[in-house]
């Protein structure tokens, strides 16, 4: 590329960002000048091999992440369900959801607790 051509090419690159320029036409010119971006030969086959070969590490990784996600959701859902059941049962047994009810002290008087702890 001669010095003039380099200057022209730089101008073209700068002009491509003009708000009023025709981006499609300028990008074609830039590509014709040599600024092409291509994947290597056999790119398509490599992609298809990765997708359709069952032994592919990428697919296995994707499958692993997916199953991990589904396991996580199942555990999270069961956890939430268990917490809700626990709250309901505490409410039914203790009659409220106060801290004392959580600790199982909702229906005991102070004296009975002292008696329980000290044995006297």
């Amino acid at each position, binding site marked *: 590329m001669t010095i003039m051509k380099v200057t022209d090419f730089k101008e073209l690159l*700068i002009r491509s960002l003009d708000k009023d320029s025709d981006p499609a036409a*300028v990008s074609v010119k830039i590509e014709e000048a040599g600024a092409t971006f291509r994947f290597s030969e056999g790119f398509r086959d490599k992609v298809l091999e*990765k997708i359709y070969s069952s032994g592919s590490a990428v697919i296995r990784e994707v499958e692993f992440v997916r199953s991990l996600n589904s396991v996580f959701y199942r555990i999270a859902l069961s956890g939430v369900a268990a917490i809700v059941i626990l709250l309901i049962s505490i409410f039914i047994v203790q009659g409220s959801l106060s801290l004392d009810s959580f600790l199982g002290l909702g229906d005991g008087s102070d004296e009975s607790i002292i008696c329980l702890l000290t044995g006297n």
Partner: protein
Amino acid sequence: MIKESYRQKSENDLVKASLDGDKQAFGEIVTRYQNMVARTVKGMLGDSVYSEDIGQEVFIKLYHSLSDFRGEAKLSTYIQKIAVNLTLNEIKRRKRFFSTFSQKGNNEMYEFEVADYDTEEKKEASELVNKALMKMDPKFRMIVAMRMLQGYSTKETAEILDLPLGTVLSRLSRAQEQLKNILGKL
């Protein structure tokens, strides 16, 4: 003969066939859009073999999310969005890696290899674009890659990058300033 019949199929037909497990149909999608993805990924990450890996990931992710494609937008826009997201993730990953493990700064984040070109002029042009893009701020580089390499309008760029039109316009103007400075030094 079989390939010819796939070439004539519409995007939606190819998507449906791919969902039914038709390997050739998905192959045709890859053939149609691989250059578009290459311009986005290599424009933003540099022309290296690592960009090829990201390019492959784009199509693998597309394959796994084909069932989510409802045909409301163009397939090319859908693929571009995947390409942009994966490329931005890769840029973030590289930033984290190089800031943790390297003392040399960001310059080595975007090494590129120059492919074989039929003329010296084309090789120089490609090198110039690569060097200029890699020196740009990633948020400007995204806009430049969409505009300069893909030829998208401001509206299309805003749609693909999920940015307001005003943001794209202001970034475009700042990107142009940055590009002028960079090219002046190259």
